[in-house]
């Protein structure tokens, strides 16, 4: 795939994805406290990271919904509504998942 990486990278074994992803994710977990021992994040940088943090999640939901159908949109809308009203992640997920399951059961295809 043309992603601008040198072609030798194409010859690396595919299973390297597993340790690579684990290493990246652990590094992001460890980086925050390490950074904070050295520098204090500027207020602008803090705000940027704050905006980035929620935007990544929003973007993934929006992308999934753009590719999916009404069923997934309805499940997400219900989960978000329950979260906004009941402030419970647990019940938001129960509601969204149940709706999707019921939809598959009663409105297959």
């Amino acid at each position, binding site marked *: 795939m043309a992603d601008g990486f040198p072609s030798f*990278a194409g010859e*690396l074994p595919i299973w390297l994805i597993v340790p690579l992803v684990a290493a990246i994710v652990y590094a992001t977990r460890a980086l925050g406290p390490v950074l904070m021992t050295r520098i204090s994040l500027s207020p602008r940088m803090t705000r940027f990271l704050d905006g980035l943090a929620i935007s990544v999640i*929003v973007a993934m939901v929006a992308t999934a919904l753009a590719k999916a159908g009404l069923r997934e949109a309805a499940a997400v809308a219900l989960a978000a509504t329950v979260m906004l009203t009941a402030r419970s992640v647990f019940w938001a997920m129960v509601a969204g998942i149940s709706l999707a399951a019921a939809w598959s059961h009663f409105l297959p295809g």
Partner: protein
Amino acid sequence: MAEHDDTIRLTAKGVWRGFREMFAIALFSIPFGIAFGTAAADAGVPPLETILMSVFTFSGVAQFAALEFWREPVAWGMLIFVVTAGSARLIVMGAVLAPWLNRLTPGRRFLALAWLSDPNFAKSQPAYRAGERDAGTLLGAGLALWSLWVIGTVIGALAGNVIGDVSVYGFDVVMVCFFSAMVAGEAGRRTAFLPIAAAALVAVVTLPWLPGGWNVIAAALAGGAVTVLRDDG
């Protein structure tokens, strides 16, 4: 001066308490893990690699993102970018918890951080502000989420074809429902509206134009940028 009990510690008792308190929400890690295991099987990832990914990565976002790249030739550069951007929020969470965690010995600090994820951060951060001093609660809650996530992954990876189509049980929407609940939880904050709107708009508009995954990066950067610009303006 009497330094009374404000010491930050990490105890087994705290770990167990964190584990118990997180258990109900952590149960969702099982269907979430099953959904990941079956999605990985669909993407052609062998069961061992799938399970190792859950054991050592323990991140739904990063792992689902990685599945998109499981085909030869691997787009390594884009994989690194997407996984890093998808995990950038962990840097923020770690920075927020730093006043707590940085008072532990490095060994304990980096141990607790290995199990840092969205739900235990969301629970621990207000608890710390409210006076919780045992960082074991963060670790214990993470262990509850992680162990059930691994169990779910094993079921999905090994029995995915027996279970069949997980959408019958609504398992396919576990991740997207969890994310939308997190976004809705944040949406109450005044500062969250602009990045949410900007990110959703950019993600959808750029989806047909950008190669897979890049629309998420564009949307994330847009959301980060509007957050900075709004407060500067």
